[in-house]
């Protein structure tokens, strides 16, 4: 288990994520806004590529290629002096951790990848064993926020009292590398704790709390009906819990809930009156960020206007 005391506040590479960049760019601007206010020492690199996770879990990318791409990103993090790779997406988190573990523990893989780099003249990319640690150098933004809850609570500018919040902890954060979760992987509380620090009324448990979002990588496309049934089941359990806001930590989950909520309303003949945000957008909003110019709520499918107007 990882402990709060281990969470760094410097040397953080804010790892760019394809689905944030393409679907919810406001998650990235919210993360940097929040980090600035919380005095987090971070860096965003224009050289860092995304993790290939989407292709990997679509059964297209292989583990060797994914690990080689990760090694290139690790070199960028180290070269710039920001070795604490911190992601906004749960799949980037899991992919990078696994790649690091392979590079440290599997000599054949490390040698193979380093020989590719050497042959191509990319000497600066060569991975030295244990130059990063698969536990101590990999974080998710929600962990960074968890280490700063007191400060977030003190700087919070919005009265969230009475706002019913439910958390969806992303599967690839707590179910893959379950030994490294902060807290109990059977009932992770990271998002809940951050939301509580801003005075929200957090729904502790709801039916289907641990159910996957339903995106399932290729499932949304090749088994669309099942994919939406899963999402519908979860949305129904949130409706019964009477929530106003659902908080996420993964852009793929956010697509599945925010973009597909109106689709499910239409196809299942139902109605939901709650909105969605990523934990970074929530923290940025609490710290005074502009809902459009920083949080980028205009890119969401479920409109947040009424929700935002109801806040004092």
């Amino acid at each position, binding site marked *: 288990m990882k402990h709060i005391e281990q969470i760094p506040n410097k040397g953080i590479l804010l790892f760019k994520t394809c689905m944030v*960049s*393409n679907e919810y*760019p*406001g998650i*990235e*601007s919210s993360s940097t806004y929040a980090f600035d206010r919380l005095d987090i020492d971070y860096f*965003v690199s*224009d*050289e*860092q*590529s*995304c993790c*290939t*996770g*989407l*292709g990997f879990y*679509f*059964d*297209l*990318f*292989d*583990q*060797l*290629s994914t690990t080689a*791409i990760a090694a*290139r990103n690790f070199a960028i993090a180290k070269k710039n002096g920001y070795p604490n790779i911190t992601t906004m997406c749960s799949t980037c988190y899991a992919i990078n951790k696994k790649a690091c573990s392979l590079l440290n523990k*599997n000599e054949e*893989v490390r040698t193979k990848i380093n020989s*590719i*780099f050497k*042959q*191509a003249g*990319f000497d600066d990319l060569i991975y030295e064993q244990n130059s990063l640690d698969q536990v101590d150098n990999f974080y998710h933004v929600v962990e960074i926020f968890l280490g700063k809850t007191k400060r977030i609570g003190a700087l919070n500018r919005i009265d969230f009292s009475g706002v019913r919040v439910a958390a969806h902890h992303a599967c*690839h954060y*707590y*179910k*893959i590398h*379950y030994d490294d979760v902060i807290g109990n*992987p059977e009932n992770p509380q990271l998002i809940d704790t951050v939301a509580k620090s801003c005075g929200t009324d957090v729904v502790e448990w709801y039916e289907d709390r641990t*159910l*996957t979002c*339903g995106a*399932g*990588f290729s*499932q*949304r*496309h*090749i088994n669309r009906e*099942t994919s939406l*049934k*899963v999402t519908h089941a979860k949305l129904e359990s949130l409706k019964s819990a009477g929530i106003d806001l659902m908080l996420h930590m993964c852009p793929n989950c956010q697509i599945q809930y925010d*973009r*597909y909520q*109106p689709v499910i309303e239409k196809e299942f003949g139902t109605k939901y009156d709650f909105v969605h945000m990523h934990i970074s957008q929530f923290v940025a909003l609490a710290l005074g960020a502009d809902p459009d*110019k*920083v949080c*980028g709520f*205009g*890119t969401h*499918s479920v409109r947040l206007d009424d929700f935002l107007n109801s806040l004092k």
Partner: protein
Amino acid sequence: MIEEATEKISGYEIPECETLVEIVKKSLRTSDNIGIDRCMQCGACTASCPAARFTDYNPRQVVKRVMENDFSVIEDKIIWNCFYCYTCHLRCPRNNSPSQVVQVLRQLSINEGIGLDKIDMLFEYGNVFAEMGVSTLPPLYLQQMKNDFDKRWFEFKKNLDAVRSELELGPIKIRENGHHEIRIILEETGFFERIERLKKWQTQKRIQNKVAREMGNETYRTNPE
């Protein structure tokens, strides 16, 4: 069987072994200490599996077939129902991971030319990734989203660059010091050769299926040899 071009990758994904259990244990995709041969058929995986809740898929059963070395499991379309949510991986009391087992089965399946229709929408993904350094959703997938979502979403996608600059974010495309590092890395791991092989294969399969259809007999599986 898959040819030289893809063997570079296959060796890591699907090492040459006698049994399915051995392949699963040695594949780079699975955890070092995966407890496949410790599975006690308790069904905790199935009890917590979303795919089992909504379809006929049953991870305990899939693991059983792997333990029995039943190669026909790779031809069973049911393996394409897993969400890769890893709930089974978290819950299994024997440190097994049906989620990772299924990933290996799908790779075996793809290498046999089965199930290419489940991934062909992504064949161009590697090129886009090599060019941009960022993954984007494949056109077919995007088309689905375009059908599903309202016009506002489509407008946003068209104006993505403007939206990003309003949020003071840089360009999506990454900087590579003029090296094309990503393309070269993926060429050297054998990624592109494999995709080209799969693409060719899929085209052959379509032609064969067309002929078979005309003769009143459609095939699901195609082995080019």
